[in-house]
Structure formats: C-alpha cells, structure tokens
C-alpha cells in the first residue's frame, strides 16, 4: 500500500498538470478554428494571436476552454483523448488488424527480443574477452565508449542499406540496430561483474589449482549475476528504442516506430502519443519481467 500510494499521488498530479496545460497549449489553433466557424474571438486575426501570449489568449477567450480539449490536431492532446485512442487501437481492434497497436507492438517486440538476445550475447562474449585478455581490455574499451557517441539514428538507414546489399532483410537489420544499442550496457555491467570476485576468492581457486574455465563457471559467472541483471534492465529498454529507431527508415512500415512516423507525417498527434505510451508500457513491462527473473534467479542463488 505504501508503495502504491505515492505513485498514485504523483500520477494524479501529473494528470492535473497535464489537464491544466492543455488550454494554453492548444488555444491558438482552437481560436483560429472557432473564428473560421464564425465565432468572434480576441484578437481577431491569427498573426496578432501568434504574437500574443497563450495565457492572455486563454484569459480573454475563456469560453473557448472546453473546445481546447476536443481538438482534432492538438498540440497537446488531453489525457482522455490519448486514453480513448489507446482504447480503440489496443482493445477494440482485432490484434491481427494493421490498425491495432498490439499488432504493431508485437512487430517491434519481436525485433527487440531478437536484438536484445544478440546484443546480450555479444556483450557477454566481449566482456569475457575483455576480462580474460589484457590486450583486448586496453584496445577495445575506449572504442566501445566512443562507439556510443555515434548517433545511431544517423547511420541506421545506412546499416539497413548495407545489410540489404548483402542480402539481409526483414527483422534482422532492425534487430542488429537494437543489438547495437543494448550491447554496451551489457559489456560495461558484465566486465564489472566478472571482475567482482575479490583477490581472496580468486586465490582460493588458485589453492585448488582450478583451471581458467573452472574459475569462470564456478566463480566469475555466478559472482557477475547481480551486475548482469542490472545491465540487462538498461539493455532491454535500449533495445526497444533501437528497434523503434530502426523502423523509421523502413518508412511507414509496421511497428511502433512506423506508427510514430506516420503519426508525425500526417500530424496525428494523438496517434504519436498513444504509440509513445504503448512503447513506454512495453519497456516498463520488459524491465519488470527482467526484474522478476532477477529476483527469482538471485533468490535461488541465495544472493538476495
């Protein structure tokens, strides 16, 4: 209970703020629309209104406030508009319909999961290499950091084209971009984790004359689990962002990224917002899922 209450309170105040902001954000377009419909508004020309402050406009045209909540192309949709769109696209539409967010969510999710798997696998392998080879540690680590400064969205289309030219198409290019974003947190966390055993724990194995692989399986890997899970949580959220980014160049195609793009293309703000909310819910669920796995695994390992 003490967990839910604060969250509810914060959510409630966000909604309050949100509702309060709507008239100010939407007042200009609303007034223009009303003016076209023949209502008198002050000031009575759009250019003067463009240069007027939103607060003044709302105060001087308070009759227009209800209309700001019902705009078709709002600058800021009201929460209930988003909720209604979500209801229609998530619940009412058949999940196989191209207009169903569940359908698009699944497209994105499948790329996310594939990319996350690739990214995690590659991240763990790289971390193992870094921990076991000094040369790799010294040469690769600085570049792994630098690689994260490359704006992925900028090269995502090129990656897709290049992969296309070698015959890789479909979900795989998306997964690769999503893997690119998720591998870095995994490398960093896993390197930390594999190095977590202290000198004493390592020496203990030495006194048993354990081999390198025994050291890995019996000590380093179990010791790295808490770190691995912490970075998996970051990694899975990054993977989702990657998959969405990768859907943009593919253009108006399927997936949540496609939804956001076409929403933006046709000025359907509500559609963008509901895709956004849906994506965030998806990310949160993935993170929760990993948190649950973490809890279970670490409990079973006796680390919690």
């Amino acid at each position, binding site marked *: 209970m003490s967990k839910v209450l604060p969250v509810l309170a914060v959510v409630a105040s966000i909604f309050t703020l949100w509702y309060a902001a709507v008239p100010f954000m939407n007042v200009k377009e609303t007034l223009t629309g009303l003016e076209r419909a023949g209502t008198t508004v002050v000031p009575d020309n759009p250019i003067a209104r463009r240069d007027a402050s939103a607060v003044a406009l709302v105060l001087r045209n308070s009759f227009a406030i209800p209309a700001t909540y019902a705009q078709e192309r709002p600058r800021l949709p009201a929460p209930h508009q988003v909720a209604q769109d979500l209801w229609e696209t998530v619940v009412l539409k058949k999940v196989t319909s191209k207009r169903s967010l569940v359908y698009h969510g699944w497209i994105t999710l499948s790329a996310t999961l594939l990319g996350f798997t690739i990214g995690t696998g590659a991240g763990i392998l790289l971390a193992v290499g870094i921990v076991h080879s000094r040369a790799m540690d010294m040469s690769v680590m600085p570049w792994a950091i630098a690689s994260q400064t490359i704006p992925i969205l900028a090269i995502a289309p090129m990656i897709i084209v290049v992969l296309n030219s070698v015959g890789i198409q479909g979900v795989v290019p998306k997964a690769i971009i999503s893997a690119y974003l998720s591998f870095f947190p995994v490398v960093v966390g896993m390197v930390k984790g594999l190095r977590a055993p202290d000198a004493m724990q390592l020496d203990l194995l*030495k*006194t*048993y*004359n354990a081999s390198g692989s025994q050291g890995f399986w019996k000590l380093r890997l179990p010791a790295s689990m808490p770190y691995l899970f912490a970075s998996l949580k970051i990694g899975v959220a990054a993977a989702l962002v990657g998959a969405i980014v990768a859907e943009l160049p593919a253009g108006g195609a399927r997936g949540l990224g496609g939804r956001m793009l076409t929403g933006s293309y046709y000025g359907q703000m509500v559609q963008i917002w509901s895709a956004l909310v849906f994506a965030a819910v998806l990310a949160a669920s993935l993170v929760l899922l990993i948190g649950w796995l973490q809890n279970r695994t670490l409990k079973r*390992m*006796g680390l919690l």
Partner: protein
Amino acid sequence: MASPVNTPVISAKSLDLTFQTADAPVQALKDVSLDIAQGDFVSFIGPSGCGKTTFLRCIAGLETPTGGTLTVNGMPPDEARRARAYGYVFQAAGLYPWRTIAGNIKLPLEIMGYSKAEQNDRVARVLELVELSDFGAKYPWQLSGGMQQRASIARALAFDADILLMDEPFGALDEIVRDHLNEQLLALWARTNKTIGFVTHSIPEAVYLSTKIVVMSPRPGRISDVIESPLPKERPLDIRDSPEFIEIAHRVREGLRAGHSDA
C-alpha cells in the same frame, strides 16, 4: 634457529620478497629462513605489515619469492600447489554466497574431480567434524560469523591436504567463540597429525595452539624470534593460567615489542 629433527615438510632458506609498487619497492620479506616438520603447529605473530600473510602465500605458491629457496615436500611450492598439497583458510570466511554450506565445501571436490558419491561422503564427514551437520543446506548468510568460519575450515579439510595454512581465521570472532574454536582446532590437529601454519594477532591464541611460535617484525619483514613451546600436546583451556603459559606469552610479547620499537 629451526628444528631439523626429521626432514622438514616446509623449508625456507634466506627467502626474500620485494613488491614492485607504483612509487617505491616494498620489501615484504627479507632473509627468512625456517623449517617446519611434519605434524608441527606453527603460529606466525607480528605487527601489521610484517609479512605474515606474504610468507604464508609464498608457502602456498600464491606469491613468488624474489630470492632464496623454498621447498614444500621437497618440491617448489608452485608444483606442490598443483599437486594440491594445501588447504588454505583465509582471514574472512570467504564462502561463496550463492552456494549452500554443503555446496561451498563441495567446491574444491568438484574442481579436483571427485566422484559425486565421494563428494557427498566427504561433505558429510567434515560437516560433522566442525559440528555443522544440520546446516549443510543453509546459505552462508544464514549462519553466524563463527559458524561461517567453521564452514570455511571444513572446506579446507574436505580434501586430504597434508598442510593446512590459516591466515587469521578467528580474527573477527568474539573471545568465547574463539576459545571454543581453538579447542576444536587442537583436537582436530591431534587427531589428523596435519602440519598447520597459523597466522594470528593474539598472543594467548598463538601460545595456546602452537608447538612453535614465529615472531616477525616489519620493514623489512623478517623473523625476529622462534619459540618452541614446551607445553604438552594435550591442552585444556585453563592451561592459559599456568606459569609456563604466562612465561611463554611474556616472551612473545617482549619479542613483539622489540619489533615494534625498532620499526
């Protein structure tokens, strides 16, 4: 200085060890010579930084001396390590938190390739030895500090190493628990006739347990006194109030103080 009664199990001759650190080299051991015979219980005592741990690690082949010679069972320590001649008990219990007590004890057995049946057998045996039979399925943090320490001793006993090296195993325990574990360790030693190297900061502990007390002093780390104990093998706890005991303790304290003042 040493007692070459029978052929020594461990024999160090003018051992030197210098650590290369970022600023200046640290001479951790200088000209250390010592023989330890089969069945000896040798305590190392000395102020912080005098090289007790370093010496123990050299014997275990975890550190390579930069000078002098050191043999264990007639071979270099590294080879002896590979032949799994030691059990090593660290200052802190150092149990793996993701393994149960039984799992922790099994660890060396798995690595050394014992059969499953043999593993279970041995785990049961050593758990009984340290009076933890009921706790095999528990995780380390479910046990008190003293019980954890006993588990780590059990782990070192599970495979039949002739030599047991213990680095301040009871440092973190309170006096009563410590007394109790001291008694048990002595009983075990009497029963198995292992050779034991034991690091401690406590003078009474060193005197109570050992057949031979090695007093060390720092900067550079060296042996400043070796005291053969005249106490009998059978030692009830109240032997500590006997005049011989107090006499030896006094000698150890003097040795320690000398090491401190010239540092």
